[in-house]
């Protein structure tokens, strides 16, 4: 007879049994045709390609949508055709004609020039965060219908305001904001004249490799294969799981619970380098780590202090010891991997020189200052190392750690003194960074435009003029020369101490091949990914 007591004891043992017997089966590797990725997903705002403007969302969007062209991952000076098969400029470089290739949306409908025109018009009409990338060519909600036209089913014409270098235009059209969406589907889901925005934030209507099955915020994103799309591999689904902790990501990768881990730290990567079950896919991306000195602080406004700071930092020591696999020393305001980037690193730790500069500035006794920094690693470690370095030359730094968005809010309000933060380039052209670092025409508190330089109250008419000249230069070779000169001057004569450039690593299990990382998150692609 089974007494009540025995029954209860037996019942309690059932979950335990499941551990022991299922150790070989249910906790085994992930299914063959599903790619499971562990990634931090907490920074996403929207999956509407004409609205979303941050790295993680950008990566998802570039796997769900196609643009007219795509930046060539191997050769940064070229673009490859995607939706646009060929293109031509008129004599004045103001009218650009695109002939479209054959492509199909996930719904089965063909991609037409009408969809392309609608998409670009939509981006400008909605006028969200990334819209400036294309409306800098003079498009507005009023003129967009006449300037972006589908002249027939396979031909698209763009007319810019002023003569434009076609390479610049093409690079801007390779950004996610120029993604081609399916006009019929988007308009069918329009509400309150929002051009389908609310619906497209959580759904997809594109021609890319995958379509969006579900986005559960802070939990997971599930992408389903688009049978009509360009993907030719053996995956049917890609599931991206939100795992905040890099240690957890590592554990899951090693156990085979995920196929790819995206946010591992230097220490973890070091350990994985010798692991034969894991392949590391690495790419230096367009993200720079720098210290900003707010010019509204009297001490920080002295040019000798700018230089003193740059000569006090132990770049190599920090890079080798704290961030060996995730960052490289880089001191120019343009990221490596972009055309025209200068990779000189003139600054090295020289305490004597830095101290002499402090004396020259009349600050032989040093001064007290605060430095804000992100609370996510490796920022706290680097901040403490910086604190020690600056302490040696008399700058006594008090550290303030805060969430990313908190630091951002503070910098936007010009509330920081020194700040250690990162800047990710917006689109694939040297103007993207040059503009935010150099072009500041209005330094008042309620300026219309508030570029990165403005946040630290830095206004230099000289740099502004040089950056604008470089942007507008027609001759491609001369343009690059102008940017190179600008970078060298900026290094020596600005209140921004650029220290590192970020290298992203995707740790893949060895049976996963073909995952690509791009210099911008838009280049992170599953297009060629397969699972053996």
């Amino acid at each position, binding site marked *: 007879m089974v007494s009540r007591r025995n029954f209860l004891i037996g019942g309690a043992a059932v979950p335990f049994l499941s551990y022991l017997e299922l150790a070989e089966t249910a906790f085994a590797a992930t299914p063959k045709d599903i790619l499971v990725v562990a990634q931090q997903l907490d920074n996403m705002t929207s999956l509407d390609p004409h609205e979303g403007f941050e790295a993680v969302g950008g990566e998802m969007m570039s796997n769900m949508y196609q643009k007219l062209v795509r930046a060539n991952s191997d050769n940064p000076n070229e673009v490859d055709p995607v939706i646009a098969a060929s293109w031509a400029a008129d004599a004045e470089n103001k009218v650009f004609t695109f002939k479209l290739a054959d492509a199909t949306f996930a719904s089965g409908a063909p991609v037409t020039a009408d969809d392309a025109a609608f998409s670009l018009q939509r981006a400008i009409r909605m006028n969200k965060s990334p819209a400036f990338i294309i409306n800098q060519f003079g498009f507005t909600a009023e003129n967009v219908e006449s300037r972006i036209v589908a002249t027939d089913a396979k031909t698209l014409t763009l007319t810019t305001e002023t003569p434009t270098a076609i390479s610049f235009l093409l690079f801007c059209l390779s950004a996610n904001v120029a993604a081609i969406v399916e006009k019929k589907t988007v308009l069918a889901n329009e509400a309150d004249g929002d051009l389908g925005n609310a619906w497209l934030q959580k759904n997809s209507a594109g021609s890319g490799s995958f379509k969006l099955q579900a986005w559960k915020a802070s939990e997971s994103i599930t992408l389903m294969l688009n049978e009509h799309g360009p993907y030719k591999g053996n995956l049917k689904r890609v599931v991206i799981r939100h795992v905040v*902790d*890099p*240690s957890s990501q*590592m554990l899951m990768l090693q156990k085979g619970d995920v196929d790819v881990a995206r946010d591992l*730290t230097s*220490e*973890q990567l070091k*350990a994985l380098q010798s692991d034969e079950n894991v392949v590391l896919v690495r790419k230096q991306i367009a993200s720079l780590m720098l210290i900003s000195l707010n010019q509204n602080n009297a001490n920080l406004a002295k040019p000798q202090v700018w230089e003193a700071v740059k000569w006090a930092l*132990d770049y190599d*020591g*920090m890079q*080798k*010891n*704290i961030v060996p696999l995730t960052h490289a020393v880089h001191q120019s305001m343009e990221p490596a991997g972009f055309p025209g980037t200068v990779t000189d690193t003139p600054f090295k730790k020289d305490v004597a020189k830095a101290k002499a500069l402090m004396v020259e500035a009349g600050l032989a006794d040093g001064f007290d200052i605060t430095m804000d920094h992100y*609370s996510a*690693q490796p920022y*706290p*470690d680097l*901040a*403490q*190392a910086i*604190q*020690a370095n600056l302490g040696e030359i008399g700058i006594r730094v008090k*550290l*303030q*750690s*805060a*969430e990313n968005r*908190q630091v951002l809010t503070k910098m936007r309000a010009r509330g920081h003194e020194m700040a250690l933060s990162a800047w990710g380039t917006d689109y694939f052209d040297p103007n993207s960074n040059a503009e935010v670092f150099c072009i500041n025409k209005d330094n008042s508190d309620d300026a219309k435009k508030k570029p990165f330089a403005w946040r630290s109250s830095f206004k230099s008419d000289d740099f502004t003029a040089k950056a604008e000249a470089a942007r507008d230069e027609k001759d491609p070779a001369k343009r690059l020369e102008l940017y190179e000169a600008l970078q060298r001057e900026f290094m020596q004569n600005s209140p921004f101490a650029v220290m590192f450039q970020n290298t992203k690593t995707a740790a893949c299990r060895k049976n996963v091949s073909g995952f690509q990382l791009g210099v911008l998150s838009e280049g992170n692609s599953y297009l060629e990914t397969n699972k053996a």
Partner: protein
Amino acid sequence: MITTFTNWALDESPSSRRQAAWGNRYRTWLKLRTNPLGMIGLSIIAVFVAIAIFAPLLATHDPATQDLANRLARPSAVHWFGTDELGRDIYSRIVYGGRVTLGMVIAVVVLVAPIGLAIGCIAGYFGGIVDTILMRLTDIFLAFPRLVLALAFVAALTPGIESAVLAIALTAWPPYARLARAETMTVRGSDFIAAYRLTGGSAWRIIFRHIAPLCIPSLVVRVTLDMSSIIITAASLGFLGMGAQPPSPEWGAMIATAKRFIFDQWWVATIPGIAIFLVSLAFNFIGDALRDVLDPKES
């Protein structure tokens, strides 16, 4: 000398109030002494306080000196507990960290007890609308998720030890108010209070000179029990990046920065964890023993 004191305190018929009070305290101490867990707890805390006070003498290195080439070193003769992610000596950081933790705990108690006492006594004594309003306020703070409230306060006040202390204090006072109020209500109808009123004592005088002191024993018990949760909340805030800022050697913050090495260099995170555990446990033992001795049915 000790025997004289003992005899005086344990006198069966005390001749003054002071003697009776000290007698009670001494008897409590005697009872506490028989509780082995309580004594263990007390000794641990005594050691902890001694370490905190004599930190400069006990530390082997400067807790802030970085040695980037010697990061994450294993425990050795030079670095007894190894080094952390910036090459700093862990043993010295633990020793100095004791000061931070002790300081935070004392600061919180110093803030919380008077606030809770004041609000509770005032509410309990005056009753009526004052009571209703104050208790409503207490309820609101009690119903609010504590960690969230602390997080919000710290974020609003800029992260740091001062803000963390303030935040913890602001979330910890409601139970003390409730306690003080309950005690006050029991006592306020008694004869000696009535006597004070008759002799013309003002309400405030009565509350602060006569009623409040009576609430203190149960508050003390509660505080000792809460110490452990204060330490853990402080460590949790440090773990979430909201507490003491680097390079302060606060134990919770040390765990936070070291948790990413837990697989290979496990000692960097585990040793501060053990420190927190020991001190919390000690406070829990003492509080438990005190509760046994003073008021076994306390809830």
